[in-house]
């Protein structure tokens, strides 16, 4: 397997805090990888490093055979790595269409206005936002703005898409729509890394799950493997519960 995106021993420190601790990770083309972990585990930090917001303190990041750690975010975006923000980041005073035209104009090659508009409309239709094209971005509902983030990423023609909690704050019906959308994006051949708290979503979408805890990668594998891993249970539910489970298992074995 040649990975499309790989992190090799990546560490990120903020002053005294180690937000990511020697994380290595290989992602194959076309994969949908779930990235999970408790709050503060370093998931957003990982996305920020891959997308060029921070330069890793140590370690290397390779995308499509090219080292990208140390590149600026606009350079990484132009290479084909798109990301969405946990807290949505629209251009609030622009229309929905203009919002999506911006990546089409600046990241997806040197498109003229008309070509950029065409590409933007295509992304809006794909995300079911075409009827809101002339609305101001700030007037969209939260679900709408989450979809706008997706449409913006798609208009960049990304090879890899990093989704940071795109479902947070959505109701179940909206989540189902978003799930369908992500599946269709994946079907286009886009490699996806998705950060998600809802296990239902992760189980549904991902072929592989990576678990972060206190900045370190503590487990990696299929959804079934990861959810039965004692380290993961401990990270999520705390020591006591893990010991209790282990104790029960031991008692069961003894008895």
């Amino acid at each position, binding site marked *: 397997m040649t990975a499309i995106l790989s992190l090799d021993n990546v560490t990120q420190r903020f002053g005294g805090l180690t937000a990511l601790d020697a994380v290595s990770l290989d992602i194959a083309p076309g994969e949908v990888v779930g990235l999970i972990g408790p709050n503060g585990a370093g998931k957003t930090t990982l996305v920020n490093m891959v*997308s*060029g*917001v921070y330069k890793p303190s140590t370690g290397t990041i390779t995308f499509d055979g090219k080292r990208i750690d140390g590149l*600026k*975010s*606009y350079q990484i*975006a*132009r290479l084909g790595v*798109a*990301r969405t*923000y*946990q*807290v*949505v*980041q*629209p*251009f*609030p*005073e*622009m229309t929905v269409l*203009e919002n999506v*035209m*911006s*990546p089409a*104009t*600046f*990241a*997806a090659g040197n498109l003229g206005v008309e070509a950029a508009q065409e590409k933007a409309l295509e992304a809006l239709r794909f995300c079911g936002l075409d009827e809101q094209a002339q609305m*101001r971005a*700030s*007037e969209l*509902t*939260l679900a709408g*703005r989450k979809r706008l983030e997706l449409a*913006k990423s798609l208009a*960049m023609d990304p090879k890899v898409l990093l989704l940071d909690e795109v479902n*947070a*704050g959505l109701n179940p019906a909206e989540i189902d729509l978003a799930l369908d959308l992500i599946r269709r994006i994946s079907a286009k051949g886009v490699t996806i890394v998705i950060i998600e708290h809802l296990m239902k979503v992760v189980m549904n979408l991902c072929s592989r799950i990576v678990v972060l805890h206190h900045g370190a990668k503590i487990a990696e594998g299929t959804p079934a493997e990861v959810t039965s891993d004692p380290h993961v249970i401990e990270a999520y539910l705390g020591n006591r519960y893990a010991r209790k489970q282990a104790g029960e298992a031991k008692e069961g074995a003894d008895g």
Partner: protein
Amino acid sequence: MTRVLPVVLVIALVAALPLLGDNYLLRLGTMGAMYAVMALSWNVIGGFAGYPSFATAAFFGLGAYTGAILQGAGVYMPLAWVAACLAAALFAGLLGLAILHLKGHYFAIASLVVAEVLLEITTSWTSLTGGGMGLNLPILRISVDAQARLFFWAMLALASLTLAMNWIVANHRLGFGLRCIRQNEDASGMVGINTTLYKVIAFILSAVFVGGAGALYASWVFYIEPPDVFATLTSVKPIVMALLGGAGTVLGPVIGAVLFLVMEELVWRNLLEIHAAALGILIVILIFFLPGGVLGLFKRRRKPAAPSRPLASAEAGR
């Protein structure tokens, strides 16, 4: 194009001002054109990109001294003006690389200090600039009327050039990218905008014609001194003008410059003692009652972005 034609006609009409044969009007016209150059230039960095620059006085003074020194050394006047444009542009490029990573108030203060520093340097570098004594420029050997016409037309041409530059920027990907940067700079990088490059270009464009205006001004008044051309008010006025007319629009700064000039002539001539207070009150009124400027009154009223705040805080709290 239908919107360009009326503007060209108005400029042509204004260019006919010397026909009235009133040198007071001509002086006002020259001032108005100079104000338009400054307001339109500030508009590129402050209006389009949203960076509150107080560096106009620095570019103006630098242009004035570049032009004056070169003319004093015998350089042909129009060439000295061009050189002043280039000097201001080069200076803005270097300054921009140094301070454009600062945001908001920090950028404003850093840009404000620049003119003060240049003022000190100019005052102490007596051998080159004449120091606090100021600098005389070569006298033109043409009639007073011909001079008035010459400088009026030159300044009007410079203002037209600055207006054209604004129009081109607004309709070019540069303008689109600058609007993105103003609304969300982090997201701008993520959509592929080279934010550093775009901001530096915007800063250079906000300087180049102001440098020219400074040199023209020096040639026009024949004598410059540091506190005159590096005055802090020179940085403040263009901001007020742009806000008055409508920052971030192409025509707004021109309208603001004309309104400002009229107010300055009618009101402040008669209120000399409270000139600064009047300017302060105007700024407060602008900020509170006219956020979109005069042009904003004619646009559809913006709906308040009510839903954005509760949601943003809800997410941050998670």
